[in-house]
């Protein structure tokens, strides 16, 4: 007989005026190779069909099932219950808009982020569909792909002290990773000055407190710490250079 797992799950339906935020408790017997995906589906099927949570791929690819698992943001589908204690507390990701219970709307946030950082290749070159594609070295393609692996689950944002403190006034690691990806791409012709306009302020990289919650929880193990450091150094140095050029041009 497996362990009796006690689940404390946040419940609230913002669409229902009568709904009050509270925790519900469910008890479930642990089975072999049980993930939180399996556990939550069993709770919904066997105990409470009104429980709201998101899943699509069940394989750590879609990023839909991110939630706070005993306070730590992670993907429910790749979290095995055997790694967790007998009592498991599940909460929705903070910072994002709550849809209901464990379900949050990360889509609106990420769409806004992409618009804000202008998350596409900026170039003056006119696309010629008949011309052969410009070659890129394999190393460069791999470096770009490394940052492209973000699944937009929102764990980095939920783990960020600054994003929790000022939810609408901080871009967060997902945005910085996205900018770093385009800075690396030789096809993007934006200058450092143009990137600075997007990210060189307290809502951007200079607001980052360096707590590295993002780095420590990213389910895809993206090298976020190194991107944050690179961005701050590059943007900071650009600002100092600009200051010096202003001071010396006055003479």
């Amino acid at each position, binding site marked *: 007989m497996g362990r009796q797992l006690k689940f404390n799950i946040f419940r609230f339906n913002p669409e229902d005026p009568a709904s009050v935020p509270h925790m519900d408790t469910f008890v479930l017997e642990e089975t072999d190779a049980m993930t939180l995906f399996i556990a939550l589906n069993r709770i919904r099927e066997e105990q409470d069909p009104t429980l709201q949570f998101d899943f699509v791929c069940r394989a750590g690819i879609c990023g839909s099932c991110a939630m*706070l698992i005993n*306070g*730590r943001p992670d993907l429910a589908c790749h979290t095995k219950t055997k790694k967790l204690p007998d009592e498991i507390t599940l*909460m929705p990701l*903070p910072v994002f808009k709550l849809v209901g219970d464990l379900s949050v709307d990360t889509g609106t946030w990420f769409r806004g982020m992409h618009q804000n950082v*202008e998350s596409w290749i*900026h*170039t*003056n070159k006119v696309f010629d569909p008949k011309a052969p594609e410009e070659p890129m070295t394999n190393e460069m393609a791999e470096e770009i792909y490394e940052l492209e692996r973000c699944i937009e689950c929102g764990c980095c944002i939920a*783990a960020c*002290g600054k994003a*929790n*403190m*000022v939810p609408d006034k901080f871009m967060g690691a997902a945005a910085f990773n996205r900018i770093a990806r385009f800075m690396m791409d030789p096809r993007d*012709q*934006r*200058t450092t*000055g*143009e990137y*600075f*306009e*997007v990210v*060189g*302020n*307290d809502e951007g990289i*200079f*607001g*980052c*407190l*360096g*707590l*590295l*919650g993002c*780095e*420590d929880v990213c389910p895809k193990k993206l*090298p976020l*710490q*190194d991107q*944050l*450091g*690179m961005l*701050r*150094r590059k*943007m*900071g140095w*650009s*600002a*100092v250079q*600009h*200051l010096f050029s202003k001071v010396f041009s006055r003479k």
Partner: protein
Amino acid sequence: MQAVAQARQAVRTEAVWDFLQMCTGVALVLFMWMHMILVASVNVDFGGGRVMNAIAYFFEATYMAQLGGPLIFLTMLAHFVLAARKLPFRVAEQKAMWVHTKRFNHLDTWLWIIQAVTAFIILVMGSIHMWTVLTNLPITAARSAARVQTGWWLLFYLVLLPCIELHVGIGAYRIGVKWGWIKRSHRQYFHGLENKLTLVFIAIGLITLITFYFIVKPAV
């Protein structure tokens, strides 16, 4: 080449403030480590005070103490103002940060809370310490011993010492991480180094306080 992004006015002030926060932080970290070497030199001749007095005399004869002291005070104030821009002063922000820290229970986030709390303690107690020392020049081992052996000063330094060393140790690590000098591959190493350095400096500070309290003969 024509700009390829939407034209926006770049405001570089916040970047410059952040850069200056780092510069003043580095300056204060280096100062605090040198300061510890000066003060702990009283242990070199087992509380005799000759080594410490010689170093202190050098700093005063060259006017480094008279000019450097107030400059360090101004650097500390500047660092506080620059770093305080990141602190949550609104109650809602404080609550959000506290709830997040407790819920997430993540070491680097807790270290930031320690940094923020010790910043206020250092601002007040560091100012009191600097005022007392710089208005009672010259610095000598006997005068320092007299102060430590009087009233509440021992307790004062027993509070200030760990606050400073924690703030300095965490701050040095955080600067390295934030500005990308400490990479992912070296983070654990530098985290360990920061912990060890902090403990070593607290230990040296405690030994020095014991020397001042029990061994050095105070000035009358």
